[in-house]
């Protein structure tokens, strides 16, 4: 009896939480599948399913170019942020040198401060350096603002790695490079991957830098483009197009979350609990 009641309690709880988390996502997906004339029927689910909105956004450069920008900029920023953070985190976790604490504290301070406070200077600097409205113009702030998170996550992770294994492998006859490749890389890869996902989320999500430091489709990312979507004609509300574009850019997030949920949680809490 008691077991049954317990089971019911946890099941209902789970259902409520899942509904809470997914309702807005389901709603925007449902909107994107509605046809032009049933869009405003106010129903949660579409009466019939149509892919009209998807076809139209993929036919217009208004979405395809920003999508390309988003993917390119987010991947490049992720690569550089993780590369620099890995070097720094390795040093912080393994080597003894003064200034370590200062770097960690400084990084934390950067992670906390409002991006708007450097928008003006960046806007002005980028115009004179010809970085305004270019890919590097967004890659640079993204990798900088995600460096602190990446350094914290990675150094927490690297501290847990049993580095003696590397020496053990060398004693067993492996060359230093083999020891590094066969022993250290597999151990460090999950942490590096976690940091990469968190950095990617940030770059993929950003809106403020994207609307402040770009002016055309040559570097505007999807979040910025969404806010300025104009639809097929002046008189048509672009709701359907926005919904379809929203679903497309949510797909990578859902895939990453489904595959790597455990690592994302570990990465998010690693820095916070120890800090």
């Amino acid at each position: 009896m008691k077991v049954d009641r317990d089971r019911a309690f946890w099941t209902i709880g789970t259902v409520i939480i899942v509904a809470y988390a997914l309702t807005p996502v389901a709603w925007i997906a449902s909107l994107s599948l509605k046809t032009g004339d049933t869009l405003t029927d106010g129903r949660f689910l579409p009466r019939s399913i149509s892919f009209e909105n998807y076809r139209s956004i993929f036919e217009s450069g208004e979405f395809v170019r920003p999508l390309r920008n988003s993917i390119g900029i987010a991947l490049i920023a992720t690569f550089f942020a993780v590369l620099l953070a890995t070097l720094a985190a390795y040093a912080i976790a393994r080597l003894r040198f003064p200034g370590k604490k200062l770097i960690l504290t400084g990084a934390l301070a950067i992670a906390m401060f409002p991006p708007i406070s450097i928008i003006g200077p960046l806007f002005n600097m980028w115009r004179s350096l010809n970085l305004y409205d270019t890919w590097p113009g967004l890659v640079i702030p993204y990798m900088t603002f995600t460096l602190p998170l990446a350094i914290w996550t990675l150094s927490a992770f690297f501290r847990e790695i049993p580095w003696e294994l590397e020496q053990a492998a060398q004693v067993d006859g492996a060359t230093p490079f083999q020891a590094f490749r066969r022993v250290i890389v597999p151990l460090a890869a999950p942490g590096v991957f976690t940091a990469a996902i968190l950095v990617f989320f940030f770059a993929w999500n950003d809106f403020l830098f994207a609307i402040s430091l770009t002016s055309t489709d040559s570097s505007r990312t999807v979040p910025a483009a969404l806010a300025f979507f104009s639809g097929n004609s002046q008189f048509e509300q672009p709701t359907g197009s926005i919904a379809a574009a929203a679903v497309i850019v949510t797909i990578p997030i859902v895939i990453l979350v489904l595959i790597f949920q455990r690592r994302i949680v570990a990465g998010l809490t690693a820095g916070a609990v120890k800090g």
Partner: protein
Amino acid sequence: MTDVAAPPPTAIRRAPRAHTERAREERKLGWYLCAPAVAVMLLVTAYPLVYAVWLSLQRYDLRVPGDQAFVGLRNFVTVLTSELWWRDFLATTVITVLSVGLELVLGMGLALFMHRAVFGRRTVRTSILIPYGIITVVAAFAWQFAFTPDLGFVNTWLNTDRAWLTERSTSYLVITLTEVWKTTPFMSLLLLAGLAIVPEELQEAAKVDGATAWQRFTKVTLPTMKGAVLVALLFRTLDAFRIFDTVFVQTRGANDTETVSMLGYNQLINRVNLGVGSAVSVLLFLTVVLIAILFVKGFKADLGQVRGER
């Protein structure tokens, strides 16, 4: 060190030098490895920040070319005596307090659920990561559409024809709801990590002593994880105070919902008034620093208290 047996003389001569040389090498390598990251952070955040302070002391409006001059604190006077700044400051504070407060309660519930869940933990954790990971602009649109008359399901379900985003209080409601939906998962994961450090024996002991579930939560769990709660609150408060995306998408600042970050953006990017805009950014930065200091002070006081009690 005196009672340690003296090492052979040769080792005495060599050991210190080898030691310092190795230490020096290690120090050098450490600095080299950190240099790129530190250089980037200094160039792209510290330098612009100093530049922002400099700009905030200038009369510098890009619409009036050639008219740039040092004006001291005049831009700050302009901002601090304007009604707009205080209205936006109030709006930002209201949204921050409402959303962080709600998130703390909901996030704690969610964390306790995940902590105690017998099954379904994985499902819950995966699904709450979706709001965390979703693009803020997308979340803002989803909620905006849901509350738009003749489009959204909210009015259909509640059977009204209310225009939520055209009134002040209901605009705040929709904005807060969006923020809470999107960021409660993050809060709950931080709290969950805090719950993990509460020793199970303490709970059991309190249970044996006849404490109710609520008493156990308020007298045992909460005090033990106070640090985690404060860290979660600090992270989220600082984050909430710079709110921009949601309000920009949903109201563009109409109905007195404009936030301080939006004021800065409007001055800097739309009006290209770099002087006044930078003054707004510097003030926002100072506010955030002040909030952080207050939290850290509270944090220290609490830690002291806990230690004192023990």
